[in-house]
């Protein structure tokens, strides 16, 4: 198969590699860019653990090929906390409300919810809307309850 040169910007850094077209973006991020915070839970687009932001919008990286990300900018969980280690308000809210247990699904949730919390109007922040916003990410540990609480807390602080 014809390998392709790709040049992908992830968290502000450009990664240039020559890859098979079939290489999944999730594998590129994890194994080529060595950013293992993005997790793979099903590889068929249901669990949401591999969610990253493509040009600012949450997408499933297991349903994209690395070659497709050339020229685009990818953001992963590693980019959320400040360089000095200060957690992003959403991360902080997750921490305070016990919104994670095993934490495997957490990066995917954070990538999905970061734009949601940023853009959410206060009127949207009822349980139903929040649950709908995070229904594309599976969590097996928490039963989602504390994640809903974390979203409310983070949104309150963000829009205060």
């Amino acid at each position, binding site marked *: 198969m014809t390998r392709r040169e790709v040049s992908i910007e992830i968290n502000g850094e450009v990664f240039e590699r020559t890859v098979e077209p079939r290489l999944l973006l999730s594998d590129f991020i994890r194994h080529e860019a060595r950013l293992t915070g993005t997790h793979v839970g099903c590889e068929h687009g249901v669990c949401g653990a591999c969610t990253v932001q493509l040009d600012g*919008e949450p997408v499933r990286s297991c349903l994209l090929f690395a070659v497709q990300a050339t020229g685009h900018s990818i953001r992963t969980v590693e980019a959320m906390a400040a360089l000095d280690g200060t957690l992003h308000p959403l991360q902080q809210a997750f921490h305070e409300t016990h919104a994670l247990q095993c934490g495997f699904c957490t990066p995917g949730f954070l990538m999905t919810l970061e734009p949601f919390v940023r853009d959410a109007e206060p009127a949207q922040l009822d349980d139903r809307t929040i649950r709908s916003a995070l229904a594309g990410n599976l969590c097996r540990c928490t039963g989602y309850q504390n994640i809903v609480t974390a979203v409310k807390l983070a949104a309150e602080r963000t829009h205060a």
Partner: protein
Amino acid sequence: MKPPQFEYDDPSSIEETLTLLTQYGEDAKILAGGQSLVPLLNFRLARPDRLIDINNVRELDYLRVEDGMLRIGALTRHSALERSSELGERVPLLRDAVRLVGHVQIRNRGTVGGSVAHADPAAELPVALTALSARFHARSSRGSRLLRADELFVTHLTTALEPDELLTEIEVPLPAPGTRHGFVEFSRRHGDFALGGAAVLLESGPDGSCRHAAIALLAAASTPLRASGAEQFLVGQRFNERVAAEAAERAVGDINPTGDIHGSSNYRRGLVKAMVRRALVQADSGAKEAA
């Protein structure tokens, strides 16, 4: 679960795409949003020799109203539909339908053309577009043609598009002012493909009776299905619960949905009936009209 090998092209224009399709035809597969195709690749249930990625064909990404038509470029993402205020005002049925497609990550990537070309009878957009009497533009190096939904959708996951053809645009006639709509579905989980559903458009005459009705059924057959018997029945009727129930009964009269572990054929038939009735009631209440 890694995809098999394939060659990859990423044309940047329709012309270039058509040339590639002419060259590779059967052996190639169009990659649009990839939200249905890539899982099949990862499972190695699809093994095209070549993927023609049209995500760089920007000329296919548009949404505009002209000449009483909503024109949707095949590469328009679900999320673009969802966000379009014009769509919400002019074709709210489509907006309601697209909101039910998968989850936000799916809608950010999935495309209207991809959803149509994948021809899953349980998918929301093909059903909504069927109810809306949309027409589908297909192009190849040989020329172009325009297909109706009943011409396009052949069976499960199969359209009438020839191997060298590219779906380029979906045109949706704008519903007449005052047209009311309903879109209802039932799935076992949030965002899953539904087990049954219905899309409905109702237009009333000055006396309040039904002048025009469109009913399309979701997951009722191997393709999206118009319930023409029920539609005809509704015309001239004044709407009430009994009429809705009767129309629903007629809508599922001779459907025979495929059963699976989530529900038998019988269960699904009853479910689609309930969905039709509810969609009609929703349309009648008019609560969902306009954004």
